[in-house]
């Protein structure tokens, strides 16, 4: 019973982090939200008795995706509203 409650709490956290990552306007915080989604998803793969999938998800999710997105944000801009304003100025 308590295990089911804890799994439901983790699933709600996964959903909340995904929604936060989608709707937030600051791209750095969206990348951090993606890190939390990957973290909890790795725990779910682990609980479903698939440690190899969890291993791959952990390696790609927290390290590769985060680092590539951070480098991309450094080379472009961080605020999403700024990008939209520039697009509107072009039009």
């Amino acid at each position, binding site marked *: 019973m*308590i295990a089911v409650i804890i799994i439901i709490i983790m699933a709600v956290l996964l959903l909340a982090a995904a929604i936060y990552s989608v709707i937030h306007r600051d791209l*750095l915080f969206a990348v*951090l939200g993606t890190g939390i989604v990957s973290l909890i998803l790795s725990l779910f793969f682990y609980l479903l008795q698939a*440690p190899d999938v969890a291993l791959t998800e952990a390696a790609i999710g*927290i390290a590769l995706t*985060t680092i590539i997105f*951070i480098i991309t*944000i450094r080379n472009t801009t961080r605020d999403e509203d700024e990008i939209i304003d520039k697009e509107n100025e072009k039009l």
Partner: protein
Amino acid sequence: MNIIYIIVFSLMAIGSVLTFIRFVKGPRSADRAVALDTLSIILTSAMVLLALIFDRYIYIDVALIYAVLGFVGIIVIARFIEKAL
């Protein structure tokens, strides 16, 4: 399930929820980065404890990989926040 495991996992769930609240509310970048790191450490220790419960030592490898690579990711985020990447 043993009573001590129930207590430990309940505390981990409460800690995860409080850390996530700090992640959502946190006004600055450093608060959110530290919240992500704290959640990573809590779930890594949960994975180690689950390996003990399931009695399969291959499961510890997942926690090991996560601890090493999570450190690298947090270092990259911290270097970006201090504008030194």
